[in-house]
């Protein structure tokens, strides 16, 4: 069965038939492909909605924004992105190299411990450190005691609520994105490349800068890009630390001033930054054909001993300490204090916990189903490329759009659809919105990329002969999926489900904007408390989120980079 496009004239065939694709095996049935198309278009809907609303505002509006809101917010955002970018690049690369190139006692533990800050959402780490580093808090008090001062008026550390403070905090919890990808590159670095550099007169350090680092550039670009997208979309930390970023501007313009058009216009300028970031990442990944087809001996780590080994362990331990251990201990201490003094947890907090779990569950189910549909419809079949694979590319774009922007963009089409539905069904109000369906859809769009990538990778790893055998034995494509592929895809599905579940539990910006009235999750609870400045049960909510966030970190820690030798603890 040939899959080639019959573009050349064949005698006796009507002209309009020439452009129809020749008969060949299809990846999936019509209904399946229609669903996949719908999902891909659904991901584009918020962007379209945003453009629509933004174009609705008048020019005077733009001028006002351009003069008063945008300049400072843009500057802050640019400075934040630049600072965080440099910090995660340096910190992530240095830690990755330390763990790959050197061997010292405790290296195995450090290797996965450096991932722990991933479990700390940005808004929680800001929440924790604002209290920890408070002028009359424990840390500053201890420093004053050491130095012999009595009151904050005599000595205080620089305020955390500043741009440098925000850069350091965000860098401390986002560096694992770079660390993860860089470590994978360095650990599978073919040894002979570094050795060749040594025989040509380069010391180990120079060989790192001239060979290992350029080769790792694609991985560093991907990691930094992810960290910067997280920074751009962050709302909790920026607001708690008093930084007026573009995201905060979007949020306050909509929530405080009810100015949807204005908010949409700021959001559009944020999308321009997203495009710039994605372009930078793509350039960093350019010429990625660095892979070699031959089997490779990987680099042997250099054994350190004595004081060098201790120094390495301490240096590597600092990010773990600051990015995870200290805030986590603070949360545990505060939660214990609260529980021991007050007794039980308030029913409202328990309700918020239930809501978080329900939301996460719903989002996971929806996202996994959507990812499966799209991945299956777009999978490669035979030698000719699948014409539907653009849908998979589009469906995976949601991760790059900041949560606030996504939620805002989804509002207009969702409200219109909801109003129409209500009218048709004769229901009052906005049924889908009140039921939280719109929130689930927004989260699904945002988190689709992860399970999609995992399922696609899982499908390509399965030998194509499996499907051929099943089809020849009379099974339809859908049946093959159910009986052959799904059981074999279980690990990929489980990993994807875990990642989405935890991300949905941590989610803040979209939840704030799209939740039904009176619907509190753990993250919104925390946000409200921090906004009021009352640290009551916030610590318990934060602790629950962090504990949930540990699960994917453990999963990541147990995977090792392909081809890398086992690192003994």
């Amino acid at each position: 069965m040939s899959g080639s496009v019959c573009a050349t004239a064949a005698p006796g065939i009507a002209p309009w038939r020439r452009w129809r694709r020749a008969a060949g095996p299809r990846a999936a049935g019509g209904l399946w492909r229609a669903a996949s198309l719908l999902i891909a278009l659904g991901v584009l809907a918020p962007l379209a909605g945003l453009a629509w609303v933004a174009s609705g505002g008048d020019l005077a509006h733009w001028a006002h924004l351009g003069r008063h809101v945008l300049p400072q917010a843009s500057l802050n955002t640019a400075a934040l992105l630049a600072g965080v970018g440099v910090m995660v690049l340096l910190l992530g690369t240095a830690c990755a190299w330390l763990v790959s190139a050197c061997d010292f006692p405790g290296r195995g533990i450090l290797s996965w411990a450096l991932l722990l800050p991933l479990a700390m959402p940005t808004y929680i780490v800001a929440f924790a450190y604002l209290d920890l580093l408070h002028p009359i808090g424990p840390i500053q008090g201890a420093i004053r005691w050491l130095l012999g001062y009595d009151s904050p008026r005599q000595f205080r550390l620089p305020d955390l609520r500043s741009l440098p403070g925000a850069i350091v905090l965000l860098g401390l919890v986002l560096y694992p994105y770079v660390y993860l990808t860089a470590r994978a590159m360095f650990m599978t670095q073919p040894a002979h490349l570094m050795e060749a550099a040594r025989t040509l007169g380069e010391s180990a350090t120079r060989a790192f800068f001239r060979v290992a680092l350029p080769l790792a550039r694609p991985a560093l670009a991907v990691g930094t890009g992810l960290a910067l997208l997280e920074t751009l979309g962050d709302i909790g930390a920026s607001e708690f630390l008093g930084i007026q970023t573009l995201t905060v501007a979007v949020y306050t313009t909509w929530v405080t001033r009810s100015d949807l058009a204005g908010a949409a216009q700021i959001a559009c300028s944020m999308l321009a930054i997203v495009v710039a970031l994605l372009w930078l990442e793509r350039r960093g990944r350019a010429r990625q054909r660095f892979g070699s087809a031959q089997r490779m001996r990987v680099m042997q780590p250099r054994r350190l001993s004595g004081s060098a080994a201790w120094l390495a362990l301490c240096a590597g331990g600092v990010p773990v300490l600051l990015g995870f251990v200290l805030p986590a201990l603070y949360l545990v201490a505060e939660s214990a204090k609260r529980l021991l003094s007050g007794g039980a947890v308030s029913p409202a907090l328990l309700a918020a916990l239930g809501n978080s779990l329900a939301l996460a569950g719903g989002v996971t189910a929806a996202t996994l189903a959507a990812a499966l549909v799209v991945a299956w419809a777009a999978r490669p079949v035979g030698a000719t490329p699948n014409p539907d694979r653009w849908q998979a590319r589009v469906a995976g774009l949601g991760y790059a759009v900041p949560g606030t922007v996504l939620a805002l963009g989804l509002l207009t089409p969702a409200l219109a659809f909801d109003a129409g539905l209500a009218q048709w069904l004769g229901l009052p109000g906005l049924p889908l919105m009140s039921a939280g369906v719109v929130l689930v859809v927004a989260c699904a769009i945002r988190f689709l990329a992860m399970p999609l990538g995992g399922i696609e990778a899982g499908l390509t790893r399965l030998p194509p002969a499996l499907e051929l055998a099943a089809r020849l034995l009379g099974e339809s494509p859908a049946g093959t999926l159910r009986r052959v592929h799904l059981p074999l895809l279980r690990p990929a599905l489980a990993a994807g489900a875990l990642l989405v579940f935890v991300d949905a539990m941590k989610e803040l910006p979209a939840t704030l904007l799209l939740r039904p009235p009176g619907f509190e999750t753990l993250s919104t609870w925390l946000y409200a408390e921090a906004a009021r400045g009352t640290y009551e049960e916030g610590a318990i909510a934060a602790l629950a989120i962090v504990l949930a966030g540990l699960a994917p970190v453990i999963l990541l820690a147990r995977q090792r980079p392909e081809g890398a030798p086992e690192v003994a603890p």
Partner: protein
Amino acid sequence: MSGPALLLQDVSLSYPGPRGQHLALDRVSLTLDAGRIGCLLGPSGCGKTTVLRAIAGFEPVRGGGVWLDGQLHSSPLTHVAPEQRRVGMMFQEYALFPHLDAAHNVAFGLRRLGAAARRARVSELLALVGLPDCAERYPHELSGGQQQRIALARALAPAPRLLLLDEPFSNLDLATRERLTSQVRDILRGAGQTAILVTHNEAEARAMADVVGTMHNGRLTHWLENGPRID
């Protein structure tokens, strides 16, 4: 220059294995005069690559010593870093830097030269290996045989005192292998380059080397002059 270009005396080497220390080299001794090509022949796992790595400085020696041009470079008490030994190496896996084109690969070890001198040396070497037009091609755009010739050019560029060849032809097909073997031999002889080749292919050893030694289980036997060659 005093003494032979390369002298190994009772070199022993071990590294940690699944059951304690594994003796990889057991009192290996050999000498090689300047301008001659030596060859270590043996099955895989016999330790011939380990000899090269010890000479290059990638493995510490537990006993004996390695002298280059009469100076001690490796012993249980001394170890000169690989980048200071002026020893070049060709690898089985080519090891061309994938992010640099052929010219920049060849120029990699020529940092101390001025730009003009560097350019001249690169052109000279590319012509020597018969690839003058490949300067701007990247490794993935070159065939296996071409990659190995660029690797040779790169290793020869800084005029090393000794060239180590670690089974450089075993990843190539038979026809390319035979052609390349004689080409490399002619280049090395023409330049008067001292070299040690490691291979499991006896025909290659006979074709290229002046002195051939057999290795087995970490021991070197028969470091002997090669018999008359039929060219």
